């Protein structure tokens, strides 16, 4: 029997496979496909203090082995989230992680301090990397000093583990990760989407209502993997790998590169129960390789 469970601070993940923010709704929607309690964790759609409308349509377009999205953080807002969604998690046996977004530092802090009160929530993932909102987000994610202030401020008001999710659209991602680590972040998620665009040659205009969108899907996995590998050599808090994972092989590549946990994003749309297949594939790989604990894979590619 192999051990698939992973520890992060005091949190136990029953396996290293989580679902990525914005690709798994509020989790509940997937119960029609499988028991979401089987997952290592669920990261819900980016939440803000107030409800957000999101960007004008069209919001998605397919690209070669990928897709662009410009959802723009449409969400139901804090109040509705705690009243309607949280109670549904009372009896779901997995880690619920709330991805949070604010248009300024104060908003992040207020939201984090409020969410700190809910026992259903295992950790917060701070989204400093969404390319689809005008104010705040993207800028935050690119400046190590802002990251430091943001994360320090959140840590002051929230006792739950703080995961910082970074944008790949930077020159040196490890530098930003180091700033988050200095501010006592508990883990780093890498990567959010890569900014891209598609132009409609019929109308001669950008296809997406918001012009730009975030590229996700298998196309980007070599980039996410490289960033995990690079960052692993520069920080000593856990890394959560995300970007293009849609097979056990790619998931294992992320673990070998240095990710302690991984997230499945776009692949959830294509194959709703892909996470289970990946958990199973990781288990079988460990059995074949006669490795008794998934944590022993982490970072092996650096040896």
């Amino acid at each position, binding site marked *: 029997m192999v051990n698939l469970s992973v520890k992060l601070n005091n949190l136990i993940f029953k396996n290293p496979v989580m679902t990525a923010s914005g690709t798994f709704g509020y989790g509940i929607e997937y119960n029609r496909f499988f028991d979401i309690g089987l997952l290592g964790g669920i990261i819900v759609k980016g939440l803000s203090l107030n409800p957000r409308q999101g960007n004008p349509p069209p919001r998605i377009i397919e690209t070669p082995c990928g897709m662009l999205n410009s959802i723009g953080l449409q969400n139901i807002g804090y109040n509705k989230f705690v009243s309607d969604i949280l109670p549904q998690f009372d009896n779901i046996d997995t880690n619920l992680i709330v991805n949070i977004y604010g248009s300024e530092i104060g908003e992040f802090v207020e939201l984090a301090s409020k969410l700190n009160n809910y026992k259903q929530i295992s950790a917060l993932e701070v989204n400093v990397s969404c390319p689809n909102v005008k104010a705040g987000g993207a800028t935050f994610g690119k400046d190590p000093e802002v990251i430091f202030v943001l994360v320090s401020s959140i840590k002051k008001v929230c006792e739950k583990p703080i995961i910082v999710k970074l944008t790949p659209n930077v020159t040196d991602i490890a530098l930003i990760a180091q700033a988050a680590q200095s501010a006592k972040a508990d883990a780093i998620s890498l990567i959010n989407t890569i900014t891209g665009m598609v132009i409609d040659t019929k109308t001669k205009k950008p296809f997406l209502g918001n012009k730009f969108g975030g590229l996700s899907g298998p196309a980007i996995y070599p980039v996410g993997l490289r960033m995990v590998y690079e960052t692993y050599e520069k920080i000593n808090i856990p890394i959560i790998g995300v970007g293009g994972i849609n097979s056990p092989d790619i998931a294992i590549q992320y673990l070998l590169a240095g990710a302690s946990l991984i997230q499945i994003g776009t692949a*959830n749309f294509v194959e709703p129960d892909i996470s289970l297949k990946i958990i199973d594939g990781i288990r079988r790989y460990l059995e074949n390789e006669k490795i008794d604990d998934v944590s022993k894979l982490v970072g092996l590619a650096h040896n």
Partner: protein
Amino acid sequence: MQTLVLSNDKVANDIYCLKLQKPYGFDYKPGQFLMIKVNNLNEPLLRRPFSIAKAVSSIDIYYKVVGLGTKILSALKNGEYIDITGPFGNNFEIKYKRLALVGGGIGVAPLIGLKNFLDEQKIESECFFGFNTAKDCFVDFGSIATIDGSSGIKGTVVDMLAHLDNSYHVYACGPNAMLSALCKLADEKGFSVDVSLESNMACGFGVCLGCSVNTIKGYKQVCKDGPIFNYTEIVW
């Protein structure tokens, strides 16, 4: 869910009818759709949405070849398997009015199942379908209009609707030009209209938030709040 292809035949210009083995316990309401993964590769990456035209002995889908996904679909042979999820979406609500089904081109597809359902329930309805030419037509019932007059009356499907008044409710699906002509007529004559909308989709069940349409109550999801909307709700 891997599903057996029973047949996949060309039924008109660029239009195919795909029949899939109906999985045990499969149930749907007219207006709902499936998401189909057309191959096992990462290209095309996403599933494609298709209305269920009928699900009596098999699941029947009528589709038009417009791009890569539908082109790949058209090469499927009986005996092969494809992966479906669904049915998803809301459905045509039956109104206690005189009912007319109005479809243009491939937009006729979801109305086939509705007609079937209404017939089963012994609810009367009139059908009006428009195509560019006789070669595009893939239905064998209803009143037909073609732009070039090669089948039925010469003109658009909306030209056949002069008799509709506020005692009617219309179920419509078709190209935007048709829908806007229809809605203009509805404003004039006072009949009500439910339309089935399209949008690029990633998931099909409300989690990606990618398929938004602008309504008078803000953005709604075509896949979950729709695909069927009252036309007065939509900000065109």
